[in-house]
């Protein structure tokens, strides 16, 4: 019953005209950038973050969350119609979605992508509401040792889910942790690695780092590739699915939703992996695996449900434990802090209307997306015919203005260029940037908890192994490392990421 009254409180917050409007704006912008390849939710949230300063915190978070899950919807449209993923999480949707479009079933593919996402979104919202309170109660029992071990677990998770060499991913995490140390040490006030540059005394900004590593280096990479984009010329029609198609797709949607919800909650996991794993699962259990890649509706239904479910359940660790599990959630954490809310178990009790309002807004937003997406497809198709050579300078410009406006300083623009160059170098050397970002965000928290834990135990490191929860996290982290080191699993993992590349 408590759940119902909480959800009622959420509804009250979410359907106020102001919040409804910004939720709509968020999902609209999200779909738009989801449709456009080369610009993702990370850059968009970074650009719009300063613009949300004037809004109440709930409204700001509702809009930013809308951008995130809206982008998952939009990404599938591009995959299906153009065979170019609009977002990294819709890479797999290309395989069967575009084939369906070639067979003249683009309308059906778009419908199942939207409906699958909607079902998944509803389920994930409910799961988030059910899990939030018990998890945050567990979090209150956490001491510094538990937090430290949980973060180790999360970082190992990001390594497991990164593509490419494991040892290089570990290196990227450690490099991220070191970059997180830049700036004033909170305990002693010492300026670390600031080299006398006043702008570095507050540390490296998250926005320049993320925009450089993801935004700018991505643009350079796309310019190196010769990209061919052919928008489907034929008219898109026939949105209704046949009974046979519904029967085939429904179980796939259910499985995709479950897989996605589960992978979203895991630290370091996220939408990209969710869509891949659910696609492989469908192919594995199908009686006719040959039909995948040739326009099988399940190949669209499962990954699209999975990525949307994961994009919502990955809010669980942030809202209950205060630990962001991926780059976008790290941005959300940044947004909460800017608005004076410390993410963590206290949010539910101190800001119930914010917490439940954001959760319910996700459901409302999903409903809007279904209604919005199908009629607007014509507009998105027109947008896709804008050539990349006109688009990327615009992305660069919006990035630069966004970065400048965070702190009103031009040093951050230079820093972004530097990280763009670094990110491009790492991409050339096959080092994944995502673990670095997560290390960067968790670095200061990890150091603080390590220091506190060791201070309480008077310098005895065994505290991390004697407290049961802490030990459990470390054992899980260790188990994950062992599992990916096993040759059989390693080969599978490489295969999985091979399809991606």
């Amino acid at each position: 019953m408590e759940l119902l009254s909480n959800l009622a409180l959420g509804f009250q917050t979410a359907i106020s005209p102001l919040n409804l409007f910004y939720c709509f704006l968020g999902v609209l912008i999200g779909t738009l950038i989801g449709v456009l390849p080369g610009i993702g939710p990370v850059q968009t949230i970074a650009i719009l973050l300063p613009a949300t300063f004037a809004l109440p915190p709930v409204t700001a978070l509702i809009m930013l969350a809308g951008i995130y899950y809206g982008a998952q919807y939009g990404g599938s449209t591009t995959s299906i119609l153009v065979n170019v993923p609009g977002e990294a999480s819709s890479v797999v949707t290309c395989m069967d979605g575009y084939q369906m479009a070639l067979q003249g079933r683009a309308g059906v593919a778009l419908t199942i992508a939207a409906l699958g996402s909607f079902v998944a979104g509803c389920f994930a919202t409910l799961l988030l509401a059910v899990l939030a309170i018990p998890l945050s109660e567990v979090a209150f029992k956490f001491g510094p040792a538990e937090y430290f071990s949980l973060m180790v677990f999360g970082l190992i998770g990001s390594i497991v889910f990164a593509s490419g060499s494991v040892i290089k991913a570990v290196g990227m995490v450690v490099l991220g942790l070191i970059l997180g140390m830049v700036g004033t040490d909170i305990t002693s006030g010492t300026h670390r690695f600031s080299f006398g540059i006043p702008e570095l005394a507050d540390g490296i900004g998250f926005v320049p780092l993320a925009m450089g590593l993801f935004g700018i280096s991505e643009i350079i990479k796309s310019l190196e590739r010769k990209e061919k984009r052919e928008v489907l010329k034929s008219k898109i029609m026939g949105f209704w699915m046949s009974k046979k198609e519904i029967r085939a797709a429904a179980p796939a949607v259910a499985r995709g939703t479950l897989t996605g919800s589960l992978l979203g909650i895991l630290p370091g996991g996220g939408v990209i992996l969710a869509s891949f794993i659910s696609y492989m699962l469908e192919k594995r259990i199908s009686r006719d695996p040959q039909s995948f890649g040739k326009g099988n509706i399940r190949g669209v239904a499962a990954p699209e449900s999975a990525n949307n479910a994961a994009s919502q359940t990955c809010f669980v660790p942030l809202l209950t434990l205060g630990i962001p599990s991926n780059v976008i959630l790290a941005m959300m954490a940044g947004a909460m802090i800017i608005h004076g809310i410390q993410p963590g178990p206290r949010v539910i009790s101190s800001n119930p209307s914010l917490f439940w309002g954001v959760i319910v807004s996700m459901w409302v937003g999903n409903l809007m997306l279904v209604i919005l997406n199908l009629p607007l497809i014509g507009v998105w198709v027109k947008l896709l015919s804008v050539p990349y050579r006109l688009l990327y300078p615009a992305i660069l410009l919006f990035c630069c203005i966004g970065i400048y406006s965070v702190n009103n300083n031009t040093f951050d623009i230079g820093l972004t260029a530097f990280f763009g160059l670094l990110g491009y170098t790492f991409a050339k050397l096959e080092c994944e940037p995502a673990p670095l970002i997560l290390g960067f965000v968790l670095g200061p928290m990890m150091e603080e908890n390590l220091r506190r834990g060791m201070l309480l135990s008077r310098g005895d490191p065994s505290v991390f192994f004697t407290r049961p929860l802490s030990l459990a996290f470390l054992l899980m982290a260790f188990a994950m490392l062992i599992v990916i080191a096993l040759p059989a699993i390693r080969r599978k993992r490489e295969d999985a990421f091979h399809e991606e590349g």
Partner: protein
Amino acid sequence: MHIKRAKDFKAGLIFIFFGIGSAVFSGTYQIGTSARMGPGYFPFALGGVLAGLGLVIVLRSLSRGEGMRKARSFRAKPVVLVVSSVVLFGLLLRPLGLIFSTVILIIVSSMASDEFKKKEAILNAFVLLAIVLIIFVYFLKFQIPVWPSFLTGRI
């Protein structure tokens, strides 16, 4: 040397560089004891770990190769032009203002594309300039210098 190894080799060198750098600079801050960690403790340890990882990667790259793998072609034009357009924007925003730096950013970065057309890029620059002025300056009221500082007299 095989390409595949060369990638690991270079990545390892970058890690060693950052690791040693971190350890050396942390050494100049107070290290402290494990019960009372100073500001240098954690970064010093991380620097050591990173340098160690880098060393392992470098050594492995020398002994283990998986045969030739074609590296993706490297082209200097996109990197140089995109990065320098961003740097230029950063350098020129204060002295020249948003209007001039926007036009310069768009034109320099557009030249990075193989399908660069002069007229189209200039047109794009002015369309984007109008959008930026309307959204960021007029509606969102960002605190951003619009005109060159020698015209407004402000720095």
